């Protein structure tokens, strides 16, 4: 699967505007350099669940936002994607030897892991013809506590399946990894995610400038 990046998104992450800039070529060069180091992997499981509060197997996820997200769904996918551990060392090297690459690659890889996640979701969508997928929602969004990440990891055994680990402070390692819940529903649902559910909304520089980090 070819993992790409969205140039404008990368530039937004870097606090830049969308005007053509000499940095554009640097981003592309860095992309070509990092591409061979990607070791993308994903794992997912499809669960039955009950709501108010959301319960999956022996785990309870207390969150009004999740109840809302899944209220028309009959099953829920928990998906995890990662760009793999091989790029971690390169990121550390950039930190020492090339701060410019360090900051640009961070933004670039974020866009890439999001692209990868979207492509996997599209692939999964193909396996459920006639069904609709809700927005992807993750711990740390809205009122879904970041500590629920631990439960996701236990349910999916991500350490063993795709080599993603959690730190005691709920950071994922390798860093360029994403987990999410997606409801599978018979009816289409409006957008749930966005600035309103983002825990950065108070401090976000983009939002202050009237922009958004979303594509």
């Amino acid at each position, binding site marked *: 699967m070819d993992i790409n990046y969205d140039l404008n998104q990368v530039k937004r992450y*870097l*606090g*830049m*505007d969308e005007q053509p*800039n*000499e*940095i554009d070529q*640097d981003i592309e060069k860095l992309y070509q350099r990092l591409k061979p180091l990607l070791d993308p992997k994903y*794992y*997912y*499981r*499809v669960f039955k669940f009950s709501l108010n509060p959301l319960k999956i197997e*022996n*785990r309870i996820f207390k969150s009004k936002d999740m109840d809302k997200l899944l209220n028309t769904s009959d099953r829920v996918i928990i998906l995890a994607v990662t760009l793999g*551990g*091989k790029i*971690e*060392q390169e990121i*550390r*090297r950039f*930190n*020492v*030897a*090339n*701060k*410019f690459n*360090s*900051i*640009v690659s*961070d933004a670039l890889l974020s866009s890439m892991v999001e692209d990868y996640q979207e492509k996997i979701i599209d692939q999964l969508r193909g396996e459920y013809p006639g069904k609709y997928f809700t927005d992807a929602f993750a711990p740390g969004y809205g009122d879904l506590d*970041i500590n629920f990440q631990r439960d996701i990891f*236990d349910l999916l055994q991500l*350490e*063993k*399946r*795709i*080599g993603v*680990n*959690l*730190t*005691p*402070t*709920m*950071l994922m*390692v*390798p*860093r360029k990894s994403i987990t999410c819940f997606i409801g599978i529903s018979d009816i289409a649902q409006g957008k749930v995610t966005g600035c309103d559910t983002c*825990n*950065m909304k*108070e*401090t976000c520089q983009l939002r202050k400038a009237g922009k958004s980090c979303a594509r």
Partner: protein
Amino acid sequence: MLDKLLEKDIVFLDGAMGTMVFDSGVEVPKHVEELNVTAPEVIKGIHKQYIDAGSDIIYSFTFSANRYKYSDSEYDVVDLIKRGVANAKEVAKDKLVALDIGPIGTLLEPSGTLKFEEAYEIFKEVIVAGNGADLVVFETMSDLYELKAGILAAKENSDLPIMASMTFEQNGRSFTGTSVRAFVTTAESLGVDIIGVNCSLGPIELKGIVREICDLTNLPVMVKANAGLPNPQTDEYDLDVATFLGAYQDFMRYGVKVVGGCCGTTPEYIKALHENLISHPKDIVGYKSTISSGTDALEIDGVKVIGERINPTGKKRFKQALLDEDIDYILSLAIEQVDAGASILDVNVGTLNIDEPEMMTKVVKAIQSVVDVPLQIDSSDLKAIEAGLRVYNGKPIVNSVNGEKEKLETILPLVKKYGASVVGLTIDENGIPSTSEKRIQIAKDILNAALSYGIKKEDVYIDALTLTVASSQDQAQETLKAMNYISNVMGLQLVLGVSNISFGLPNRPLMNQTFLTVAMTNGLTLPIINPNSKLLMDSVNAYQVISGKDIDSNHYIEKYKNEVDQPVVKTGESMDIFTAVNKGLENEVHKVVAELLKTKEPLEIVNEYLIPALDAVGNNYESGKIFLPQLIKSASSASAGFELIKQQLSQKDEVINRGTIVLATVKGDVHDIGKNIVKVILENYGFKVIDLGKDVAIEEVVEAVKKHEIKLVGLSALMTTTVKNMEETIKALRENELDCQIIVGGAVLTPEHSKVIGADFYARDAKDAVDIANEVFGYVS
């Protein structure tokens, strides 16, 4: 008891526990091993089924029972482990019980945040609690470093035999990048008794990996594969007993001796293995001179260059970096040497006024986080050698022992214990012998001593030492004669620091290059040289062709095909510094500063050229004409100029320091990009930064502030979850009544919130941090 069991042709392990527990109908708690106390009969029942199916060794139900994972369990984890072993023992009777230990549940440094030393303590607790078992098994390990912590904990806290089992992906690498060969080389050197793989894949996918392990070692090899791959809808495994058995029949042909099943297998699978497998004698494997990093093994099957640059001897800039704990400077030397073609890096951090063992620990860990080559731990301080060996990930080289009895008796046991190779210098109490015969005799004495400690011959490398031809011309021939004998007759690897030969002579590179070539002809495989020296590396590359190691000259051609008749390009006039910094052109800045240094004082260049150039860039950034990446590019290019100035100053024992600032990304947080940017910009403005890194313990910040009498501390945190630790760090600094001010920064912080958590300043960005630093240290910005 294990020894006796291993006399059998095939040893049978058990199958999955988890799968059986979930199918037993018992209500499964979040922490499954609690069942050892709440439903012991269920656990014992499962063990019994495996024994009935033919298992010779059963694993205690303790895989995830450790204090990290069980921090929120209402049960005492030590007790759960004891009960787990007791439950297994009760059923096992004359069969053996392995204390089952899985991964801790969070990743170790450098990618994760768990310290090696903490991992050791966690394993130690498990091993002490489970010492009623007959052996220890580490399984499902994907991090070699974690496995090493476990093996050391087992060796130092019990006498039990050890079985080490990792998981690999189909590409032959673990999730943390460890190759099969790096695993086998390291685990075997550390003295495990059985080695193998489990989990991660089904037996069919594991075939290549199992075959590779069998081809690398004479230790008994074990396999515990999953019953195929899991189905995401049902979480069930897809391989039936007959197919599973078929793959294991192949394993037996490769020489596997110890077999069982992992996820998805049941007593049926074990029974099938027990009833049908036929053993095949394993081929004896020849032991090779191999060392390893945490990811890649390196066989010394020809000339491999050891980079010599990480050594403060005679280098003022390096000594200053050690005193300043400027680890990034050392790391840049590591990266540069590997990029230049070094296969191994020598690491020596011995200088006055530092704690060498502590520095060795820090530097070994840091270097291994940025390069994949094996290291040579170089020190004359026994404690520093042990400190380096302990935290090293893989199988290193120790530099060095010599013919002195005391050296041999103190260092060789460490070499054996930590599974290293060792360099022996042909020198003893009487100095360097003047004849080749005496050097050979010392080499023999060293080899015999090493063998007596159980170190293999292939792991002993000899350095026959060279003196300068300027003062002892006849000695060069004696060195070469000794080398020839030690290589060809004794069959040992040879190490040699080449550049001593030319000391005191003009045109040293020519002398070094010629001597290197002659030495390689006489058996030198591990030259210790500066890999940035093109002449020396060229000789090595040419020698690889002539000695037949560079097959079809492929490497040589690739390296030199573009070098033919390249015309020398004359460089034009250099740019002015403002343009060079503004455009972020590192090489240009370097050139301009070098030029300026000819006529101006270093500090004058900083104050009148570099800082004004940076101010101009900073103003463009603030007014929105350029963006952060461009600012960083300019700052990095200015750093290249600063590095030159620092080198110049260190020659005169001077440093630039407009104020010392401690920076840290707080405990629990690994997002250090912002902190690193602040660092580079502060350094550009002449501030000295003590960078404590990321995920920094609260005490460590307090300690550094005390030690260096710091007036300004910068803390960063990116996550809402870690801002709490930022607050705690500030609190600790205040409680210690340290006379310092604190700047904080990070995406989730606001100026208001910064006040709430007790900071003195909030910095929006790196430029802001510089303005604050200028204010605090009384400079007008």
